[in-house]
Structure formats: C-alpha cells, structure tokens
C-alpha cells in the first residue's frame, strides 16, 4: 500500500516537472532540421529573414503571400511559382511538405545578396534534401527574392504511338483440376553479391537479372549467419532495387544491416523471390550525360538527366546507381527519388550521392530508373 502511494506521488511529481521544464527535442543527426521558420508574414528586413519568411510561407502553404515576396513577379507567373515549389503532375513533391531548412548568407553587397537555403522535405518515400542559392535584392526598403524559375521546353502537340509490348497474366483458378498446369514463376538469378562495411552498417550489394521471357516482380532477402551457423539478422532490399524487371533486365540491389560488422558474419544466405506480374515495356526512360561532379555542398554526386521518351507523364521516378571497381565488382549501390514529374520528351536533372568510401575506387557506373505512373496503380 505504501509502495503504491509512493509511486503515485512520484508520477505526479514527474508530470509537474515535465510541464514546468519541457525539453526541446534535439535535431536528428544528419537531418537538416534547422531554424524554426517564421509563420506567415515574417520579417523581410534582412536578406536571410526574407528567405526564411518565404520558406515559412511555403511551409504554411501560403502561396499568395510567398509570391508577394518575389522580386521578379513580371517574369514568374504565380501559378508557375506554386507549381515549381509545390510540385505538379502528381510528382513526389506534391506528396511532400517542407519539414525544415537552414539559411546562410553567402555574400552581401549593397542592395544584393546571395543566400543559400538547405531545405529538408519530408516525402512519402523518406527525406529529400534540396539546396537553392537564392539571389535576394532590396526593393522599396524590403528584401525580395529573385526566384530562379527554370523555363521548361514546351513539347509541340504530337501523336506518340505506343506499340511496346505489354504482358497480362491469367492464373489457374479454383475451378481447375489438381495437376492442371499453372504458369510458372519467372526465373531470376543473382549474378553478383558483395558485402561492404559502411560505418556501423553491413551492406550487401549486387545485381540480379531476369533470365525469363516474362516480367518479374523481384525482391531480394538476405540472412546473416554467425560463426556457429545461427541466424543473426534478416533484411530485404526494400526499395533499393528495381522491383519490376522486364525480360533480360538487370537491376542492382542493396540490403542494409545496421549495427552489424563483417567480423561477426560467417556467411550470408541470399534468396531472390520472383512473382509473375502484368507489366508494360512503356515508358522508355533514357539516362543522359551521366557524370561525377561535386555539388554546392562539396559532396561527390553522380548526376545527369532523365529523358522520358514516351508520350505520357511519369509521376515519380527513382534512380538507382551501381558503382563498379576496376574488376567489374559492384562496390556500392545508391538511390534517389526525383521529386519532379518526368514530362514527355523533356529532360529532368537528377543527382545521387557517391559515398566517401567509394570515391577513388569507382571505375564505372550504371544508372537504372524505376518509375511510378499514377494511372497504372
């Protein structure tokens, strides 16, 4: 009885302490949570404040007020600005929200300044980081942003015939006799596997090929086996793979085992699961001008352009990059989502990280693209 009373009193005391002295949650390492953005109508008396005010309006979806903070409204229609920031055509940006940002004045002289904004977008597939260097000018006592709207080339009206192959599946039903032949699952094969230590994470990377003549929905599972043959952990490739593979198509895969290192593992058991699914060979997406470069944050990235060669919009595209060493061995697989829709016949830039431990070892690379089209779902 005494113990019960003591516990109740302690609980009440802790509650009072919690309300009286709240603890602010620390920022998650590696994620730009940044400064708190002002609400709608924030100050614009400095370049940085103007940019933060704009981002605050974006976060609050106050598009009209955000548009009023632009200096080049003559060149940038409001609708185009909103689409540029909020996304359109069912792109990944339309399913995102601005979680946080950091701003920094790169240089300022007189009535002009350059402000870098590191934005952290929270999306349906995880965080996406975007960096914009915004030119800010002083107009009438207030600082305003010159919005860098990229004019997209217009595609002339035309008919794009689609005569690529499409596969549909009819399976055996409950009315069929036992022994009636069903359609076999596609044959897929893991053609390479490599275990890499990346900090405190053991990573399995490699490639898988669809050896069959029908499309396959593929997933790769891996089980780590310890020194005594016991199962240490089991993980799947999740979205670090191009799941739908057409005949003879090759996809990279990556499986992460956080908290494990190579020394603990005696062997790895791999399992490729494949399912027969309906699919279409359309759209064809070309990956152009792939090259390594250093981005504005000083990080090595593999960048290029995606070109949707079909006549319909690809809402969400995921880029998977495979890096090979001089022996042709897969040493890393990185992925990234493009938060803009791929419009027909219109190049769209992409960039994916090249981890520090691969720089200098990469001899060649290959980029593949997974796509999601809303009307196909």
């Amino acid at each position: 009885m005494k113990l019960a009373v003591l516990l109740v009193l302690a609980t009440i005391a802790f509650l009072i302490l919690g309300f009286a002295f709240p603890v602010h949650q620390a920022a998650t390492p590696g994620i730009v949570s940044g400064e708190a953005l002002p609400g709608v109508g924030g100050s614009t008396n400095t370049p940085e404040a103007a940019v933060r005010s704009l981002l605050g309006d974006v976060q609050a979806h106050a598009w009209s007020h955000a548009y009023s903070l632009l200096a080049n409204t003559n060149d940038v229609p409001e609708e185009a600005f909103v689409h540029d920031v909020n996304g359109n055509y069912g792109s990944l940006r339309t399913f995102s929200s601005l979680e946080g940002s950091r701003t920094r004045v790169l240089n300022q002289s007189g009535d002009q300044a350059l402000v870098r904004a590191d934005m952290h977008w929270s999306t349906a597939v995880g965080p996406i980081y975007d960096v914009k260097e915004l030119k800010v000018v002083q107009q009438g006592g207030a600082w305003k942003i010159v919005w860098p709207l990229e004019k997209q080339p217009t595609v002339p009206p035309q008919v794009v015939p689609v005569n690529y192959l499409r596969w549909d599946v009819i399976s055996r039903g409950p009315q069929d006799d036992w022994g009636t032949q069903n359609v076999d699952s596609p044959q897929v094969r893991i053609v390479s596997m490599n275990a890499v230590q990346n900090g405190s994470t053991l990573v399995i990377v490699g490639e898988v090929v669809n050896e069959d003549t029908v499309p396959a929905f593929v997933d790769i599972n891996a089980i780590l086996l310890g020194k005594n043959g016991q199962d240490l952990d089991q993980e799947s490739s999740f979205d670090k793979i191009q799941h739908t593979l057409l005949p003879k198509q090759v996809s990279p895969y990556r499986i992460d085992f956080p908290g494990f290192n190579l020394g603990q593992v005696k062997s790895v058991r791999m399992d490729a699961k494949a399912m027969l699914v309906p699919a279409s060979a359309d759209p064809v997406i070309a990956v152009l001008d792939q090259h390594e470069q250093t981005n504005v944050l000083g990080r090595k990235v593999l960048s290029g352009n995606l070109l949707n060669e079909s006549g319909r919009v690809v809402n969400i595209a995921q880029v998977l990059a495979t890096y090979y060493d001089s022996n042709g061995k897969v040493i890393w697989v990185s992925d990234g989502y493009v938060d803009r829709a791929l419009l027909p016949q219109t190049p769209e830039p992409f960039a994916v990280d090249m981890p520090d431990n691969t720089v200098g070892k990469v001899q060649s690379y290959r980029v593949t693209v997974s796509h999601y089209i809303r009307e196909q779902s």
Partner: protein
Amino acid sequence: MRRILPAVCLAVCLMTAASLAAQDLQLPATIAAGSELTIPTSGSGAATFYLIGPSYLAKRQVQLGQEIHIQPREVRSAGRYTAVLRGGGSSQSGSFYVVAAKPASLSFLAHPSRIPVAQRDGVIGVAFVFDKWHNLVRRPETVDFRLAAKDAPPVAQSVRSRDGAAWILMTSAHKAGNAKFVAALDGIEETRVIQQVAADPCHLQIRAERNAKGVLVQTAPVRDCSGNPVSDGTVVTFTANGPQGLSTVDVPIKKDIAQAELQIPGPATISVASGVVMGNEVKVGGQQ
C-alpha cells in the same frame, strides 16, 4: 486316478471352449477394388455382419448358412478390410486387402511451363497412375512419355512406374515454340503444353547512324545461339560514352529489333548488352 481326473476335466473344458471360440471367416487374401466378393458361412440362425474398411463401414443382418455378398461399391477404396460375423453365440472374423484395379487415369505434372531451348534435362514429367476409384496403382505399369514440338521429331521414352509414380527428365528442343508433352498408358493420355522460348541472345550486333536529332542505334535481328528470334519485350541496353558523359537507355525488342535514338551531340562509343550478354561497339563522330 484322483490326480489324473482334474487334469482330464480341465483338458475337456479347454477343448470345448476352443471349439466355441471365434473361427476365421473364409476370405481371399486380396481382391481388386470394385470386385464382387462372397463369403460362405456355416451354422443356422440370424447373425450380424460387420465390414470395416478404409473409407467404408457396414453392418447388416444375415442368415448363417447362407453366403454373404459384398457388393462392388463396398470395396472401392484400396486398403485393409476387416469382416466380423457375430451370431449363434460365436464370433468369426477375418481380414483381406483390396488392391487398386486396372489403371483408368493419369495425373500428370509437367515442369516448367516455360523453358529455354536446348536445356539439357530441363523438362520434368511425373505421372501418377490411378484406377477408376482414384486408388493409386502401385504395381509397375509402363508409362510412355512423348515430347513433340512443331517441325521437330518427337522424343519418346517409356518408364516403368514405381509405387504408382513414373518420372522422366527430357531435354528441350532446339526450336522455339509450344511443345506437347504427353504421358500415355493403355489408351489413357494426358497432355501438357511446354512453352519452349528462345535462350539468351547470341552475337548481338548494332549499327549506329547519326541524324539531325542525335544517333539512331539499331540492333540486327536478335537471335539466340540456335537461331530462334528472341522474344519481343526482351530488354536491350544501349550505352553511349562520350565527352559529355555516359548515356544509357533500356529498350525492349520489337519485331526482333531494338532501336533507340540517343541525343548525343559529340563523338561517342556506343555499345549494347542484353542480360549478361554483351555485343559489339560502334564509334560515331560528332555532329557537323
């Protein structure tokens, strides 16, 4: 005498008891499923007859001294049957086995439904032999397997079944197309269709031609090593390596040919691959 008399009495009692104990019914050791069977009885008066089998149980009143008729429908399932006759103060029993009748159907499993051409021992066929009442026919029977593709001589082989199953491994033909895989036994036939598809592309060749938009790259008709055209929809990857970087595009084959237009302004080396097979390289100059 006094010592012998109890022993004699005891012996007489035991012999009397033995004569009154259960006597075995006269039953055959085995019969075929669905056969008619008669069981002779002796004595007189009413008796109760029980028949207990794997999927059958019967009880009926009979007259001792008359034959008991077991109908064919009562012994359809293969297995051990026990017959018990109780009446006239005694009980008789016996057992017999029902074995499968003559083969009446085949359950045929063929795997896979889709196989590349010229795959050694790639086609597996398993046939289970059943009689009219779905009993597994365990005695050896000869099952004929035949794999026949269009425009190709059929391949046939006979296999003796073991414990009701016969199986075979066969090599797929060199020519792509649907093949009929047949298992046959005494006029009973089961057919499955195996789709023999082209194997990996062989001798991938491309040619490239610069035009106003860029470079038009096209493969020669893509065939496997047996000369079969590779299925439409098979993905071919074109890679162009130039001063502006690497460009790749995955293109499906249409009517034996894969073709793509790469927007490359400058000189480039173009290569091709499909799955794990690589083709030739072509060098193109820059736009003029």
